[in-house]
């Protein structure tokens, strides 16, 4: 392969570094109205009266919007395929607010200062309601977060707002209780995972205007332009055909921009005033009023024989969806569906639980969603089980984990919000990943610990993980390829580059299939008027689903080129040899450049343009083994991550540098979740750490060494053998680091993040026991 499985610079990186205007805010009309939101200071309250007269009277204020300006049209901001497996429990503006930062009113003014001043002039009399701030007390609490009658579920997802339940689920294979009774060794442990903020560098931004045809044109920093178009039409009752959504460059998403953010308010301002408008979230709004990872309480019971054969897994999860139920069920299900099949040889497995409403910031999609929480609980408890068994944790995994050509009953039972699809693991190099990772971290020399000078101890730990590649029977992606004169192509794709490099890798797939070079494929993506449909950038779908669509389109284009070449040369298609540049048949030949110029200007004139769609019928999982070496200071509990080894099976990495970037970026976000990051609230439900000074994402000083390798693997159903790679990297750090800390100092951390305080408390408690 000449273009695929190479290191190639991204198609956009140079222009972005050189500062070319490319992001949503860069493209806003310079005279646009500034839209700002008055946000609730209370976690739970009802607006008794709202007086906007003073704000409206302020010079420069164009419009003030309250709940009275909106029809009550329930919708979900989840940004999923339709019908969504998320409850329709949100109104654009509502008389009730349900978390600190929820939208109470909205102003549009000529500039920032006027908008800010107007917000201060809005007078609200609140009826302050009792909030629910402890998710363990939410279920069947007399306080109801969603008493409103209009809300509903699209299909059964366990939605029961009278119990503060956004979603619920239960599944069982075999009989877990019976299996556990037969097990000689059992572990029963409860884990807690925290809310994590996406913290993309570009804040949520949207701008809107009417174009010369009086159509609503929206530029937005989104992962899901087609879903945004649909939801604007649904929620505002505005004709879909009059909406055009364009996704410019996006400054990072990580799931956070899968959701609707300011689009509905900014669109409303433009529709009502006819004027261009924009909203740029402040960093505080990004933290308080966008979305975050679902905090979970996870109870795991594992049972094994004394020979180390895992027999049963029982997993109960309570998940906190916050004020609204975006992704409530799907994140919850992924905690099982993308973790439990790792141990496919068990007799029985049960997975069940509840997703509850609270008066916290809404939880939603976040890279690795569900999987990272489930992985922390399962992979930590596997190590605990190994200790009870007196068995090496790598040997145990090698004995019990899923291997090539195997399956798990869970694939058929659990999908994302629906039933799943039975799959055999036609590509699975997990066994290699474990063996290779063990070598790279030098496990045998370091496991479980090495005493160091100055009261430090070195420990190593590991975890295995899997993800999916799109959502089968739901996700569709499409691609259009157009041949231009001079023999270059346009690749038009609905797929959504949010910085992960999908424009680049999809162009690589096209170039490889067309037999051309990357510079001859001009990519344009994510414009609902000009590009074909794609669900967008989520669920690790782009490389596999959109990539397959691009591959199909490219092969179709090749076929059309051959037909035209045969006509031009006066030969049969079967007699042609074509390498993407030169067309030969016996002694006759022409170049693609000649042919394309002929088609435009001289003979048999026509435009060659093809469109193909891909609809996934399975979701081949990428796999990885993560190994970490940590140094722990036994006097302070401080933890230093020395090296993080990732060995990944993502099938063929389409771009070796960008695939590595996905893994390493995921690893460091996972390290953030494992060690540094935690959304903290006051007792009154207000966020404490709502900026980068107080919410600590990893900086370059915390990252010592990342060792990343890919297993040789080929997924036949993927484009050039590829599976997904966007999320898998984030899954292992919490469990691997927790296991390494335990191996170093004998302290088992079950509540994330793994802070020096918790480690030291554990060290002191262990000393006290002795």
């Amino acid at each position, binding site marked *: 392969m000449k273009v695929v499985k190479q290191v190639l610079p991204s198609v956009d*990186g140079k222009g972005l*570094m050189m500062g070319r205007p490319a992001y949503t805010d860069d493209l806003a009309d310079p005279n646009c109205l500034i839209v700002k939101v008055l946000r609730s200071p209370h976690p739970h309250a009802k607006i008794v009266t709202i007086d906007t007269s003073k704000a409206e009277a302020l010079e420069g204020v164009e419009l003030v919007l309250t709940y009275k300006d909106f029809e009550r049209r329930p919708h979900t901001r989840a940004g999923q395929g339709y019908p969504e497996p998320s409850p329709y429990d949100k109104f654009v503006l509502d008389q009730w607010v349900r978390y600190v930062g929820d939208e109470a009113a909205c102003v549009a003014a000529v500039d920032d200062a006027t908008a800010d001043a107007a917000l201060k002039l809005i007078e609200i009399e609140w009826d302050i309601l009792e909030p629910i701030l402890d998710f363990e007390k939410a279920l069947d609490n007399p306080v109801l977060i969603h008493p409103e009658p209009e809300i509903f579920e699209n299909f059964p997802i366990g939605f029961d707002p009278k119990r503060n339940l956004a979603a619920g689920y239960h599944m069982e294979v075999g009989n877990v209780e019976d299996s556990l009774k037969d097990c000689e060794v059992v572990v029963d442990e409860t884990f807690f995972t925290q809310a994590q903020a996406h913290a993309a560098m570009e804040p949520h931004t949207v701008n809107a205007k009417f174009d010369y045809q009086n159509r609503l044109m929206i530029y937005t920093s989104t992962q899901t332009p087609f879903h945004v178009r649909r939801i604007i039409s649904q929620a505002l009752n505005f004709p879909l055909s009059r909406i055009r959504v364009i996704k410019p460059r996006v400054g*990072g998403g990580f799931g956070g921009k899968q959701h609707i953010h300011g689009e509905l308010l900014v669109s409303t301002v433009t529709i009502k005033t006819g004027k261009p408008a924009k909203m740029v979230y402040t960093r505080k709004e990004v933290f308080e009023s966008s979305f975050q990872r679902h905090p979970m309480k996870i109870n795991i019971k594992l049972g094994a024989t004394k020979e180390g054969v895992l027999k049963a897994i029982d997993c109960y999860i309570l998940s906190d969806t916050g004020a609204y139920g975006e992704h409530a069920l799907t994140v919850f299900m992924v905690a099982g569906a993308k973790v439990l099949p790792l141990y496919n040889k068990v007799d029985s497995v049960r997975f069940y639980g509840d997703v509850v409403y609270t008066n916290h910031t809404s939880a939603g999609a976040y890279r690795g969603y569900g999987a990272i929480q489930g992985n922390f609980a399962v992979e930590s408890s596997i190590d605990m089980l190994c200790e009870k068994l007196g068995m090496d944790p790598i040997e145990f995994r090698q004995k019990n984990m899923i291997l090539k050509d195997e399956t798990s009953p869970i694939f058929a039972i659990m999908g994302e919000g629906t039933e799943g699809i039975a799959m055999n693991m036609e590509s699975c190099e997990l066994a290699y990943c474990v063996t290779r990772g063990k070598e790279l971290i030098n496990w045998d020399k370091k496991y479980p610990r090495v005493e160091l000078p100055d009261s430090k101890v070195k420990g190593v730990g590991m975890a295995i993980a899997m993800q999916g590649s799109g959502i089968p029977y739901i996700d569709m992606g499409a691609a259009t390829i157009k041949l231009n004169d001079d023999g270059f192509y346009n690749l038009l794709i609905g797929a959504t580059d949010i910085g992960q490099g999908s424009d680049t890798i999809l162009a690589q797939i096209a170039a490889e299939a067309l037999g051309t070079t990357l510079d001859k494929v001009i990519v344009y993506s994510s414009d609902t008027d000009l590009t074909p449909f794609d669900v967008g950038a989520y669920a690790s779908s782009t490389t596999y689903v959109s990539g397959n669509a691009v591959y199909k389109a490219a092969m179709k284009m090749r076929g059309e080129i051959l037909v035209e070449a045969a006509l031009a040369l006066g030969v049969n298609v079967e007699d042609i040899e074509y390498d993407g540049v030169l067309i030969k048949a016996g002694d006759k030949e022409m170049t693609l450049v000649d042919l394309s110029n002929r088609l435009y200007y001289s003979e048999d004139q026509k435009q060659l343009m093809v469109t193909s769609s891909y609809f996934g019928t399975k979701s081949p999982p990428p796999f990885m083994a993560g190994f970490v070496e940590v140094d722990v200071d036994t006097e302070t509990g401080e933890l230093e991550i020395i090296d993080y080894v990732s060995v990944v099976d993502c099938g063929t990495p389409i771009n070796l540098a960008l695939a590595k970037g996905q893994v*390493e*970026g995921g690893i460091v976000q996972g390290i953030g979740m494992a060690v540094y990051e935690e959304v903290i609230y006051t007792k009154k439900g207000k966020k404490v750490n709502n900026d980068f000074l107080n919410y600590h994402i*990893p900086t370059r000083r915390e990252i010592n060494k990342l060792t990343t390798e890919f297993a040789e693997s080929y997924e036949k159903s993927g484009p050039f053998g590829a599976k997904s790679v966007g999320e898998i990297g984030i899954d292992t750090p919490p469990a691997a680091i927790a296991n390494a800390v335990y191996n170093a100092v004998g302290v088992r951390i079950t509540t994330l993040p793994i802070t020096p305080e918790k480690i030291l408390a554990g060290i002191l408690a262990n000393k006290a026991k002795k």
Partner: protein
Amino acid sequence: MKVNLLINGQKKTFLIEAGDYLLDTLRKQNYLSVKKGCDNSSCGVCTVLFDGKPIKACSLLTAKTEGHEVTTVEGIQDEADKLSDYFGQEGADQCGFCTPGMALAVHALKVENSNPTDEEIKEYLTGNLCRCTGYQSQHIAIRNYLEDK
């Protein structure tokens, strides 16, 4: 009020409000390479050079630039072009929102210390956050750029 300054080598006079911050002034004046990621000097995407030293434009009052020189990435296009080749080789440019500011900081580092240690590079660039890459690829790209590999 009026403020006179040198931007990317050109004399400019801007009419501003006394409380305007440099980031907002620059974006209003169409220097769109300077990004807004936060408003309290904590993310680094608004990095510009102030008399050659990297500062966060979100936290400097425009009034304070009177008589000074400000450089945005538009003023170091050749350096950014070259640095981006090294980033491309390492897959170190994902979303690109932090890279113009990073290019300016790297340029300033090169002027100050042409042969920094790994620790010095990290120290110098700590204030330039990146949520996409995990930093190592950037670090390798920056080191290769500085060593002119």
